[in-house]
């Protein structure tokens, strides 16, 4: 296991957002975190990333080879402030800064790692383009490339398909799956889009203050669980080997 929550109580100051959370994420897993807005997904993510200390219990991360876990983080695109016109190369090389340390500048090896990462996510042709001028899907690939440039053991993505059109969304999800399948990379994906996680992840955590469920996706992503989570009738169906989520009764049926 690389991430372990033991009776973790998470929150800010006196405000407890999630209580008594216990689960593990194994190396090589593809793990999804879903839940309504404000339910605590970001809080859980921050605990994994180490930027939020638990109020109680423990959240431990450990590399499969011992030592600290190397995390490649892909933030939501809209949290990035692109006033300055950084090139794609300049953005991706930021993924190498932790390895470089203070006062050292990127070497040829770092440039090679940037190049490899861009090739991996199939945007090597964009390396000299300005990041702020790219489409949503291209930006997402570049941010994934930056995370890969840090040579991570776990890739954590926060709402990676938010605000994308359908083809871009599927392309990004396929890319993430390829990284997981081919490289054996542990992937943790936070999303509020249920179908994104339903058809890709292996294990799933449903996050809600009073209703926390975790386990294999087919056990957790069920109609009764989702109905309770969203406080409305929800059914989960299989169509052409894909999982689809149907919400509400009579809503949007004309």
């Amino acid at each position, binding site marked *: 296991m690389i991430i372990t929550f033991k009776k973790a109580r998470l929150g800010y100051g006196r405000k407890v957002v999630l209580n008594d959370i216990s689960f593990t994420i194994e190396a090589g897993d593809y793990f999804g975190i879903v839940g309504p807005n404000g339910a605590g997904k970001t809080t859980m993510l921050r605990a994994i990333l180490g930027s939020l200390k638990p109020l109680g219990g423990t959240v431990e991360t450990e590399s499969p080879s011992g030592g600290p876990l190397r995390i490649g983080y892909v933030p939501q695109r809209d949290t990035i402030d692109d006033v300055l*016109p*950084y090139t794609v190369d300049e953005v991706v090389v*930021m993924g190498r800064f932790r390895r470089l340390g203070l006062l050292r500048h990127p070497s040829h090896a770092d440039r090679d790692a940037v190049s490899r990462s861009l090739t991996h996510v199939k945007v090597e042709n964009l390396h000299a383009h300005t990041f702020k001028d790219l489409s949503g899907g291209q930006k997402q690939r570049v941010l994934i490339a930056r995370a890969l440039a840090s040579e991570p053991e776990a890739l954590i993505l926060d709402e990676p398909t938010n605000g994308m059109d359908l083809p871009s969304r599927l392309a990004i999800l396929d890319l993430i799956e390829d990284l997981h399948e081919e490289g054996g990379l542990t992937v943790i994906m936070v999303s509020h889009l249920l179908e994104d996680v339903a058809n890709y992840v292996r294990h799933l955590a449903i996050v809600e203050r009073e209703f926390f469920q975790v386990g294999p996706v087919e056990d957790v992503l069920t109609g009764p669980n989702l109905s309770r989570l969203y406080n409305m009738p929800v059914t989960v169906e299989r169509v052409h080997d894909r999982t689809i989520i149907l919400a509400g009764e009579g809503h949007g049926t004309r």
Partner: protein
Amino acid sequence: MEPGEIASTILREFPYALYGSILVAVACSYLGVYIVARRVVFFGAVLTQVSVLGLAATFLPFFAVPHTVGSLAFTLICVVILSQLFTGKKIPRDAVLGFVFVLSVAARILVMQKAPKVEAAEIENLLRGDILFVTPDLFWLMAGAFAVTALPNILFYKEFSFITFDAETARTQGYSARTWDIAFYLLAGVIIAFATHMVGDLFVFGFLVIPPVAALLVAKRVRTIFIISVLIGVLCPPVGLYLAFLWDFPSSPSIVGVAVVFAGIAYLLRLVRKQ
């Protein structure tokens, strides 16, 4: 006066006005790129006002310290207090800055009222930042302060860039965004405090904003933005001082006016490029 005569008068009679204003303009134009990129322009405005308050306070009998010390002390204390207040979510950042801005201006007026009347003209000159009376001592003090603050800015360029671009991911990479933020604002505070003492708040705030904005309009690369912004900082003071002598205008507003003209040209260039 003939054009050549004006230039030689400036170089002969007011050399440190020219060198000092170029020094401040370059420092503020460089720093301003980060200020604009971080969307904290109002923070720059607040620090210049706090710095002016610090200057004014040195005229009070019970705070009779050198002007630069007063300006620096007030500015750095303000940076530390603001960095604490910024962490709260109850009050928006802009509101905190607005509060400090109003407080600084009001306090300055009150301080001026209580300062000895005989020094009123000197206070007025100092607060307005009379470029023509920059002394060699003040210039070299400034040059030293800028050298000291420029060094970390250059050495930690990649860290400041990362935090400016994507603080959240930088945090996951082990950078304490808060520590780097405070370091940046303290460095900015030192530059603003010294610069305000030397050339006044209008000049400082003008060069924190106008050259970076002009550079952002025309440059396509980050390094080019810094280069163009600094270049505007180098060019505006000699042109502005020359025009101030030619038309008998005050020097600071003339120099800032030239910077505005550069920004206008940059805007037109951008329009032409778009078409």
